[in-house]
């Protein structure tokens, strides 16, 4: 029993996709760096320039990934939406826990808004990358059209 290491990729592996996973992981990394920067100042009020720049960068990269994903033809949208809705539920709960810890410790005003937006990015980025990873390996009836 071998892993067919010498044969060219076939089926689901043969299909090429735009760098959606890389962009989504990049968006996640930016928002996590921003979160670390803000947490390192807590409970003091952090300077918001860097976190806002990282948040904006994360949102922009994520938006590019979403546009690329929307343009993919013959994509397995049913499994994508099946996975994303459950993963979104799980990560909204996780993000809610983190938000609660900040609110409980009297975070307020602009820093809380930035943290909340970062947690929103966190909660939507991870489900999207999970759902895309699942759906990209679902073989569709027509797989010849690549984007």
């Amino acid at each position, binding site marked *: 029993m071998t892993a*067919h290491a010498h044969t060219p990729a076939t089926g689901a592996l043969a299909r090429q996709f735009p760098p959606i996973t890389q962009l989504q992981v990049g968006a996640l990394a930016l928002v996590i760096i921003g979160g670390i920067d803000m947490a390192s100042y807590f409970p003091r009020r952090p300077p918001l320039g860097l976190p806002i720049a990282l948040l904006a960068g994360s949102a922009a990269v994520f938006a590019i990934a979403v546009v690329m994903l929307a343009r993919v033809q013959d994509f397995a949208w049913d499994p994508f939406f*099946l996975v994303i809705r459950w993963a979104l539920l799980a990560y909204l709960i996780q993000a809610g*826990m983190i938000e609660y810890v900040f609110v409980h410790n009297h975070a307020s005003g602009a820093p809380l808004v930035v943290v909340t937006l970062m947690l929103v990015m966190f909660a939507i980025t*991870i489900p999207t990358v999970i759902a895309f990873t699942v759906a990209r390996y679902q073989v569709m009836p027509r797989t010849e059209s690549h984007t």
Partner: protein
Amino acid sequence: MTDQAHVVASTGADRGGEASPRPAIQVVPVKGLPIVAAIVVFLIVAITKNWRWALDWYHVAGGGLWTGIDLFVGLVLGPILGRLSIPARAEFSARFMPKMVLIMPTVVVMTLAAGFQLAVNLGDLEPSNPNHGWLVASFAVVGVMSVIALGLLEPANIAVLFEMRKPQPDGEVIAKLMKRFIYTAGILGLMQVATLVIMTRVATQ
């Protein structure tokens, strides 16, 4: 994602052989959800009430499990998995990965939420505190681990489970995703050594 699919098929690697029955694959083990819910509810109560013992318990128990599981999976189980045949990996994954889908997010939330609350209560996050720099270093380590675990490992884990639910799973897809799982688990295991250094340092200052 919680419905079961009884897959009776062979993987792509041994197609052509006799089909062997494989276990029912449940992406999220429903029976574990009430336990997770109870853990999260008690965690919220512990944070709300600032119960020192409960926060310590959540942080130490969660952190110990998180570190131990990452080290064991990354440095012991991963290399063993890498040497198994693809059908054997698939068989193992079908039983192992659904449990990881529930266990890992739960221990991570336990550790981080309780740890942050403890740090605030103990004043460890104040810039004048000698632990401040170590905690910021631990944030950075956890940040890198989060990107690897949430952006690469977990999607591969769930994609493997979906692949194995198919009537005819593709062995090449499973092999590719398992390779990603093995490498990322190894990196996380090594990074947990840094966490151990930082946390023992924080606890003894």
